[in-house]
C-alpha cells in the first residue's frame, strides 16, 4: 500500500493551491481528481475573475490551472504526483483512501489528507423537473465550454445569483437565446455588474418570480412562471407561459462532504455556508487530526477564498509532518488575505456562518 505524505482529494483551485503550498514547504503530495484534467470548476469558467491581484483577478478562470500547475511542476522537485481520472470512493476512519481508476481499485494510506472535493448543485422541486431539457447550470456550462455542445435553443434560467448570471452570459456568447432569468427573491443575488452585462444584452431579469411547472411530452417545451409576494407565496392570476426547450437551474450549491461523513468528521448544518459543513480550526483541520478541508467542500464561496483556504490547509498539513519552516509568517499572510476577501458586504453571509460554526473557527 502506497503511503504518500499528503493526499489531496480534488484538483480544483483549492486542491491545486493546497498542493503548491505543501510542496513549497517540502512535503510530498499526491493530488487525486476524478476528471481527466485538473482545475475543477475553473476549466469551464471562460469569464474573467473578480477578486484581488493576489488571487488572479481579471484573469479568466480557464487560465488559472495552468499557472498553478506550472508552479507545481517547477517547484515540485519530483514531490508532486498528480493522478487524474481517479475517483476516491472511500475515506475510512483509519486514514485509508480507496481509489478507483479505470475499474481498478487501489488502497493508499496517506499520513495527512486534504479534502477539496468542491460542491454539488442543488435541485428545485416543481412538476416536470424530471423532463429531459431540465439541466443544472454546471452541466450546461460543461456541455458548452468543455465539449462545445449547445444545450438547446431557448433557455429559461432560474436563479439570479452569480452562477445564473454568468452562465446566461456564456449562453449568449455561444449563440443561444436566453428568454429570461427568474429569481424568487426580491433582489438580484449575484454581482450587479454581471446583471447589467446580461441586461444590456437584452435578457430580462424577473425578480420575485418562480417556476410553477415545466411542460412538454418527451422533453421540455415550455415553463409556467408566476409572481411571488414578499412572503414567497405565489400571487394568483400572475401565471405566464414561456416556450423554451431548456430550463437551467442555478439555485445554489452545497458542499460535497460525503468522504468527510464517511471518515466520521463532525459536521454542522449552516445554511449560510451552503448546508452541512465540517467543523474545522483556523488551520482548516477537521475534528479528525489527519483530515484537513478546503474550498467549496468547507463552505460555498469563491475561487479566491478556495485558493487561500487551500494554501492554509497545505501549510498546516505539511507543518504537522515536520515541515515547519516559516509557518507563522505564511499563515499570517494567508489569513489576512482571507479576511480581506470576506470583509465587505458580499462576505456578510460567510462571516455570519463562520461565526456560528460550533466553537467558532478558532478551535478544532
Amino acid at each position: 500500500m502506497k503511503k504518500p505524505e499528503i493526499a489531496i482529494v480534488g484538483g480544483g483551485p483549492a486542491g491545486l493551491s493546497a498542493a503548491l503550498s505543501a510542496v513549497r514547504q517540502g512535503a510530498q503530495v499526491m493530488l487525486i481528481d476524478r476528471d481527466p484534467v485538473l482545475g475543477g470548476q475553473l476549466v469551464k469558467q471562460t469569464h474573467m475573475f473578480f477578486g484581488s491581484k493576489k488571487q488572479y483577478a481579471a484573469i479568466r478562470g480557464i487560465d488559472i490551472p495552468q499557472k498553478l500547475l506550472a508552479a507545481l511542476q517547477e517547484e515540485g522537485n519530483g514531490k508532486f504526483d498528480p493522478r487524474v481520472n481517479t475517483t476516491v470512493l472511500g475515506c475510512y476512519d483509519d486514514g485509508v483512501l480507496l481509489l478507483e481508476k479505470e475499474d481498478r481499485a487501489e488502497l493508499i494510506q496517506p499520513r495527512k489528507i486534504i479534502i477539496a472535493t468542491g460542491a454539488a448543485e442543488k435541485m428545485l422541486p416543481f412538476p416536470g423537473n424530471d423532463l429531459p431539457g431540465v439541466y443544472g447550470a454546471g452541466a450546461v456550462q460543461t456541455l458548452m465550454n468543455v465539449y462545445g455542445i449547445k444545450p438547446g435553443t431557448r433557455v429559461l434560467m432560474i436563479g439570479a445569483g452569480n452562477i445564473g448570471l454568468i452562465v446566461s452570459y456564456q449562453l449568449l456568447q455561444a449563440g443561444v437565446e436566453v428568454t429570461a432569468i427568474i429569481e424568487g427573491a426580491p433582489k438580484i443575488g449575484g454581482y450587479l455588474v454581471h446583471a447589467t452585462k446580461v441586461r444590456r444584452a437584452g435578457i430580462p431579469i424577473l425578480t420575485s418570480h418562480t417556476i410553477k411547472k415545466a411542460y412538454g411530452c418527451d422533453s421540455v417545451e415550455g415553463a409556467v412562471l408566476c409572481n411571488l409576494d414578499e412572503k414567497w407565496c405565489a400571487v394568483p392570476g400572475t401565471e405566464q407561459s414561456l416556450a423554451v426547450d431548456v430550463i437551467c437551474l442555478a439555485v445554489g450549491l452545497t458542499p460535497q462532504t460525503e468522504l468527510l461523513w464517511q471518515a466520521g468528521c463532525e459536521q454542522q448544518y449552516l445554511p449560510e455556508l451552503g448546508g452541512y459543513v465540517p467543523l474545522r480550526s483556523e488551520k482548516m483541520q477537521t475534528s479528525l487530526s489527519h483530515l484537513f478541508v478546503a474550498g467549496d467542500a468547507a463552505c460555498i464561496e469563491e475561487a479566491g477564498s478556495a485558493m487561500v483556504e487551500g494554501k492554509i490547509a497545505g501549510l498546516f498539513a505539511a507543518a504537522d509532518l515536520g515541515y515547519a519552516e516559516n509557518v507563522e509568517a505564511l499563515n499570517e499572510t494567508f489569513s489576512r488575505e482571507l479576511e480581506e476577501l470576506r470583509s465587505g458586504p458580499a462576505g456578510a453571509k460567510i462571516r455570519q456562518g463562520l461565526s456560528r460554526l460550533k466553537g467558532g473557527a478558532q478551535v478544532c
Partner: protein
Amino acid sequence: MLEKTGVPDADQIKKITPSPGRLKKGPVAVVECFQSIPCDPCRYACRQEAIKEFKDINDLPVIDHDLCNGCGSCISKCPGLAIFVIDDTYSEKEGLVKLPYEYLPLPRPEEEENGIDTEGWEVCSARVVKVQNAKVLDRTPVVWLTVPREHLMKVRNFLRKGGA
C-alpha cells in the same frame, strides 16, 4: 431598481458622469460599478493613477476624471465589463463610445449597427470605427462606436444589423 432589474437608475448614472468641462477636453472613462464587491483590478490597470487606490478591496472604484486621459487600458481589465470610455469631442454631432465586446463574430469598421442602452433597447444607430483585439486585451475586444452625442451616456452595447 438596479438590484431588482439590473438596470442602473438615472441618479446613479448622473453621479458617475464626467463634468461638462471635462467632457469638452476629450476622451474619458466612465466607471459603472455601483456595488461594493471584493474586486480591484481596475485600479492596477490605470497607469495614470486616475482610479484611486483602494483602502479595502471591497471599496467602490473612485475615478478622478481630471487625471484620466481616456486611454482605455482599463476597459478590458474589468471583469465586470463595467468601464467605458466616451469622447464628446469626436465631431460636431457625433460622440465616440469605446466598449468591451466579448461576442463573435466581431464587427468590422464602417459597419452600421444598432446602439443598445442599459435596458437592452435600441436607442440609435451606431457606426463601428475601430475594433481593438490585441493580445494584451486577453480576449476582451474593445469596439469603438460613433453615436449621436446625446446618446453618449446611453449606448452600452450594440446589436449587429446584419444579424448575429
